[in-house]
């Protein structure tokens, strides 16, 4: 499973979607600005590179830490991994068409938290979700609009996106502890 191959799939799909958007939409929808918002950390890397490759003027970052549902269980420890990337949405959220970008979708809990975080900034007109890999095993009624690849992995394995010094993506599989 090559992350770079999947990235290019995502890029092509996004480009087609942005071009198609202006064809298939109603007059009201055409006026909605479209923005990418990546979920920290992996999704934000993807959004950054997608924005660059498609020459989009900006992209947003969403940090879900404040809305995680495992605070009672894990405390703030879960917040730290993405602590260097606070939410930053350099565009008006009210009335916008926003495409959320994440690396791996599974339970759907992160996406739920991301929607809450996003709505703290305003009321978007439309929100879509685009992911590199969908592992299934959903625990909430959430589905992605675009998936580069469906992946079946044992539950105890963690699939994480990594970015090397040249900006290339790799998947890293780790055994879950405890």
């Amino acid at each position, binding site marked *: 499973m090559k992350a770079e191959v999947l990235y290019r799939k995502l890029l092509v799909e996004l480009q087609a979607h942005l071009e198609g958007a202006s064809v298939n939409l109603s007059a009201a929808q055409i006026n909605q600005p479209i923005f990418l918002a990546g979920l920290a950390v992996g999704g934000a890397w993807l959004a950054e590179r997608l924005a660059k490759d498609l020459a989009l003027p900006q992209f947003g970052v969403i940090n879900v830490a404040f*809305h995680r549902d495992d605070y009672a269980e894990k405390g703030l420890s879960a917040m730290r991994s993405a602590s260097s990337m606070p939410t930053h949405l350099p565009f008006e959220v009210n009335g916008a068409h926003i495409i959320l970008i994440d690396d791996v979708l599974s339970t759907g809990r992160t996406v739920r938290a991301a929607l809450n975080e996003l709505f*703290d900034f305003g009321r978007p007109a439309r929100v879509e979700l685009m992911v590199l890999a969908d592992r299934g095993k959903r625990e909430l009624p959430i589905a992605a609009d675009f998936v580069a690849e469906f992946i079946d992995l044992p539950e105890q394995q963690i699939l994480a996106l990594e970015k090397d010094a040249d900006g290339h993506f790799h998947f890293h599989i780790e055994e879950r502890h405890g």
Partner: protein
Amino acid sequence: MVKPIAKQAVKQTNAAGELTHLLTLEGMPKEQIVQILDTAQQFVSVTDPAREVKKVPLLRGKSVFNLFFENSTRTRTTFEIAANRLSADVINLDISTSSTAKGESLIDTIDNLIAMQADILVVRHNVSRAPMEIAQHVPSFVHVINAGDGSHQHPTQGLLDMYTMRHFKHDFRNLKVAIIGDIVHSRVAKSNIHALTTLGCPEIRVIGPESLLPSDLDMLGVKVFHEMEAGLKGVDVVMTLRIQKERMEEGQVPEGNAFFKQFGLTQARLALAKPDAIVMHPGPMNRGVEIESAVADGPQSVILQQVTFGIAVRMAVMSMVAGN
């Protein structure tokens, strides 16, 4: 003066080394201090102007009891704002009209608050180590935060001062910090000295009259100055403290404006520090006693930023202890 409770070992961490109470900065490991400062930095973003909802749900359904046995406006208010931004319910106890005034013991008061399902107790007390005594008494699901105990510790003030210094100076390793005035009564000075030492600050100076400087081990490694001119030379951070008349014996401090003449922070004296030195004060400030108005309101003053950072630091501390 009120007698402090005897020093004893009180743990503020659980078996995994995570913070469950915040009682003192003495002996707190560097990684833990840095973790609190990093967490606070994240909470600063809650007041991002673009965020329409300036509140996060981390402490939803939790009750924070502000228990101030000694007066405070700034600390109590910023704890209240911090708890509100974390979506906790805040109960401010007015101690002067409470059962304590009717003779109830401290532990009885605490037991009643636990019976009212308190999750976090923010305690200020004029008796040194009273919060430690409370922390020893409460069950593990109740968390105690020291908001200032006698002349012992004021850990959240120490942390917000560290946050402010890190914000403006970035690194502690080359920093020269001067703390001026009433050190012996100052829990703020003690918390700052402990934290600065742990964070690797190579030069901590205290400046003041002999009668206001302690001689105990707390001051180990601190350079003592009895005149401003020598003490301020070349420092990066100047922190003035309030003269705490309520904790003093007669004759301990030069009367009237004699203190200001000797130790007041004036523009002329500040000019001896580095040109980009910052001026800090934990408040409340007595203009014309320890600090000149032109300095307090001047371009080097970060006194009001300290107050704002204090909210994020208190959010970080509350959300960390409540989650552990």
